[in-house]
């Protein structure tokens, strides 16, 4: 599968998908006017990847803020990779939040409640 790299805009996040390395990153701000249009191709890509994944897969979120419509797509991303775990391979999520951003940390906690994937929540200095 080809790599995907999408530069961020004022309303959409940076996307780095490196399927050969099992590395998937979503970072920045996510408030697209049409979140389906933005995320649907990415979710299709992840679904195809989950059929034949790398030995280990890491999904990284480094977000500043997002709309609720994006949240539902982030959860769908996480759910796509639950299949990898069910198939006996390694898949994890790293959820970064700015050190003082308790709100983003709590959003990560919401995902922990809703997902079977191991989710590690970590404070960091985000750009």
């Amino acid at each position, binding site marked *: 599968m080809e790599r995907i790299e999408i530069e961020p805009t004022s*309303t959409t996040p940076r996307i780095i998908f490196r399927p050969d390395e099992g590395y998937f990153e979503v970072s920045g701000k996510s408030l*697209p006017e049409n979140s389906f249009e933005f995320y649907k191709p990415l979710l299709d890509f992840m679904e195809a990847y989950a059929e034949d994944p790398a030995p280990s897969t890491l999904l990284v979120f480094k977000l500043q803020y997002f709309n609720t419509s994006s949240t539902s797509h982030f959860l769908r991303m996480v759910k796509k990779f639950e299949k990898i775990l069910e198939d006996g391979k390694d898949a994890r999520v790293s959820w970064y939040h700015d050190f003082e951003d308790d709100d983003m940390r709590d959003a990560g906690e919401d995902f922990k409640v*809703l997902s079977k994937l191991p989710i590690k929540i970590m404070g960091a200095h985000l750009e």
Partner: protein
Amino acid sequence: MTAFDQYRMMRSHHLIFGYRGFLTNELIASILTLTESKLRDLPGPFKKKKSIINIIIEGLQNILYHGEAVEENGVLGHHCIFLMGQRTNEYFIQFGNFISNSHVSALSKKLSYFNSLKQDQVQKLYLDILEKGEITDKGGAGLGILRVIRDSGRTMDFSFVPVDERQSFFCMEIKISM
């Protein structure tokens, strides 16, 4: 009215800044950048300021997705008003937009129901809707409004001002205690 009159009026109404006019998603991003910049200089914990950002995202995108497009000065679009202010011990955010009269009753019922929930019920309902994935490209299912109530930690004030036989003006005010 002079600029000084406007200045005094905004100050007496505790307003920090506001916007009136046609709304686009790019404009929402600009308003957020401006808000972030203003909040850096204002008192209050980071978490509360982040709640203000979240509330503005949901409130303004709600107008874009669900507001009624109207024509003003030849421009058909989502005309609205957005105001942010600071009183002693609280920030307040006001949104106003046109909606079709046919939507008033359902929206009023939904907001009254959300307002009646305790915070733990709001959180539970938020996660339930998120998990069921009942989201369309326009959001929907009330997730955005639930986030607004969750982030403000208080009920919201809302009203509908009749404009004509087709439209009303929907007014919403959210307060965030400091």
